């Protein structure tokens, strides 16, 4: 879908118009204030020792926990980064190959929410940092769900990097079309017969919105972020901008840079600290917006931890079966949640999926998990 003209003013106006035209927000779940959810897979393998075990590393997560619920023993599964993160979204712990570039069998939280609430793709997003493989989180191969209920995935580092920006800068932006030419173009496109081999995730309208978002972000500052957590920081920045502009119902963020721990413990700690700071920026944006502040729930959870002991490279692998690897800490913050509550009981990482579905009022019939206990005020 092509847009006649793209500039920041019309983009913002378009986003606002889209928000006005969107179906009126239904009460997510009866009697709850939560209308939208930010689900952060604080992934890459992050132990509790370096988060809540060392509070100085994560002042922003600590602040969230103080205003929300801290789960100190979240059981995860060592299914590789890909499989373990996917299980956060499916509510089912299923083995997946570490470098497997294929979709899961079980529907994701994004599919449950889009199908259950009848939402367009522009209402459900994932911002990732791990490249091609992570786009598979968007939707499953389940025949009752699939691409038509998938989330729009944007990999911050893949798209918003200085190299790609340089291509756009050197070739130039698309020329705007006047209204008549846009009409003729639409007529010709509509005349092209034959099937579409792709399984389109976006309708023409939401595809046009995504096009506008891409062009706006490419000229913004996201591509210029640097540092050891640059990919993660871009994912968080993309999510922040999506939230502020479109106020979608569900935004997931998948981080990955902490996996530098295999070769550098110090580098890993640095990533944890910087990602905490980036989450602080995200929270400031949410708190600064009256609508978001009153209606947004934020859940943060690593996919698994890391080994207890350093390896021969003075790094941390993930494969020793220790409690450091298999139990992580998670935080839930939102208008309906208890404040300053610490849950010492065991819960499971897969419980996040049904929790998000319940918050938004969607069913999750295939999950093998339960809503997080002792969550609400």
């Amino acid at each position, binding site marked *: 879908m092509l847009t006649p003209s793209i500039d920041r003013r019309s983009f913002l106006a378009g986003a606002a118009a889209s928000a006005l035209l969107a179906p009126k927000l239904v009460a997510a779940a009866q009697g709850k204030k939560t209308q939208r959810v930010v689900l952060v897979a604080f992934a890459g393998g992050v132990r509790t020792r370096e988060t809540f075990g060392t509070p100085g590393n994560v002042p922003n997560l600590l602040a969230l926990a103080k205003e929300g619920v801290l789960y100190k023993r979240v059981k995860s599964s060592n299914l590789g980064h890909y499989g373990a993160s996917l299980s956060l979204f499916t509510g089912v712990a299923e083995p997946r190959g570490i470098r497997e570039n294929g979709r899961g069998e079980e529907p994701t939280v994004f599919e449950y929410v889009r199908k259950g609430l009848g939402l367009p793709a522009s209402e459900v997003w*994932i911002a990732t940092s791990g490249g091609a493989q992570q786009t598979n989180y968007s939707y499953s191969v389940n025949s009752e769900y699939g691409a038509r209920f998938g989330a729009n995935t944007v990999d911050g580092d*893949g798209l918003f990097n200085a190299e790609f920006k340089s291509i756009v800068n050197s070739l130039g932006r698309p020329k705007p079309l006047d209204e008549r030419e846009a009409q003729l173009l639409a007529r010709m496109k509509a005349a092209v017969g034959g099937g579409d081999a792709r399984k389109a995730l976006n309708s023409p309208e939401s595809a046009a919105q995504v096009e506008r978002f891409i*062009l706006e972000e490419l000229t913004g500052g996201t591509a210029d972020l640097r540092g050891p957590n640059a990919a993660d920081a871009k994912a968080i920045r993309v999510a922040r901008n999506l939230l502020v502009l479109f106020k979608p119902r569900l935004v997931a963020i998948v981080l990955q840079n902490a996996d530098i721990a*295999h070769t550098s413990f110090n580098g890993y700690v640095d990533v944890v600290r910087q990602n905490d700071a980036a989450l602080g920026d995200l929270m400031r944006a949410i708190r600064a917006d009256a609508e978001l502040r009153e209606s947004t729930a934020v859940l943060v959870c690593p996919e698994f931890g890391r080994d207890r002991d350093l390896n021969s490279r003075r790094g941390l692998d993930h494969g020793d079966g220790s409690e450091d690897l298999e139990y992580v800490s998670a935080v839930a913050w939102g208008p309906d949640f208890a404040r300053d509550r610490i849950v010492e009981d065991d819960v499971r990482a897969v419980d996040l999926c049904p929790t998000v579905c319940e918050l938004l009022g969607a069913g999750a019939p295939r999950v093998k998990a339960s809503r997080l206990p002792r969550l609400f005020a």
Partner: protein
Amino acid sequence: MHEDKQPSEEWRAAPDEPATPQGDGLTRASPARPLGPAELRTASCDLLGRPPLRAEREAWLGKARHELLEAWVGGLEFWQNWLEEQLYYFFLIDNFRPESEGVLALPAELAAGRLDVREATQRIALSPSFDQRNPGADTFVTVVMEQLAGMTVQKNVRELEIGKSIYDGANGVFLGRPGKRQADIIEIAVRHRAFAQTFVAREYARFFGAPPQAKALAAWVQRMHAAPAEYAALVREWLLSPEWEARVRARLPMSNRLFARALYVDLLDRLPDAEEARRMRSALDGMSDSGPLRSVLARILIDSGSVNLPDKRAIADPRRWIWEQFRVLLGRDASEDELNAFVEAFAAPECRPATVLYALLTHPQYQSY
């Protein structure tokens, strides 16, 4: 731009046309399995990872498919494309792309027949990039088991633990063969029958977009396990099969890498340089639905001033020009309805040649082949 043969000339050589008397009074039979625009575009994308260049279209349209396969399968560009596909499978891309001479030399050595696909895969897995991509015993052995042998490690925990011990320098029997160092794990895995099974199934799916029939797979696996150099012959057989012809008709979605390369070939009649291709592919890979970004990229390139677009007034026969664009960009003839709609729109003063290209290149059908 994009001037194929006149419709009348083209139809003379089209696959469905009967043998016709030519000007010299002699009857010439059509070649067996002649290449139409769809077969040529698909074969080129399958074998070389890009659509045909203009000169290739002129050279091969109407010729026999087996002649094209003889010329292209096993050549340097075929193996360059094969290597890129393998590196992507192992996610040895971007910062993890191997730069060692051993890996970079693989296409030339494969083309010269000095290596087979098993040895080439082994060399990829022995590269420092593979080790860096999969750091630590657990990750390394897991990836070898999953990607080379197609095993689910959670169901083969004992083999995983043995493999991890070998990785750390201990003696052990991994997948039925003894080993005592990291390189042995790869050697054992690629020489296991499971490698041939995984490799053939994966390659078949790449060409056909579907898994092979079990019986046929078993025969191909036996052949590949005994003689991995048979791979090129197998590819030729696959592309001469009725199943491949059905796949051409059905069309498959383009990968992001193929889309980036196709855009440059179709618009500029050249491949993007390695960096241009990598940046575009990487950006497209970052989206679960890359369609909107593909549209943006197509428009950016068309509007960049690099595309040799004809002046509208110079297009004497718009119907023919549009017909050519369909053949080049979509790999098929336009229907009468399509031609009528495009010609009518093109007659409007606001419709430019670029508008026609926008319509075809941003249409979902362009993203399949």
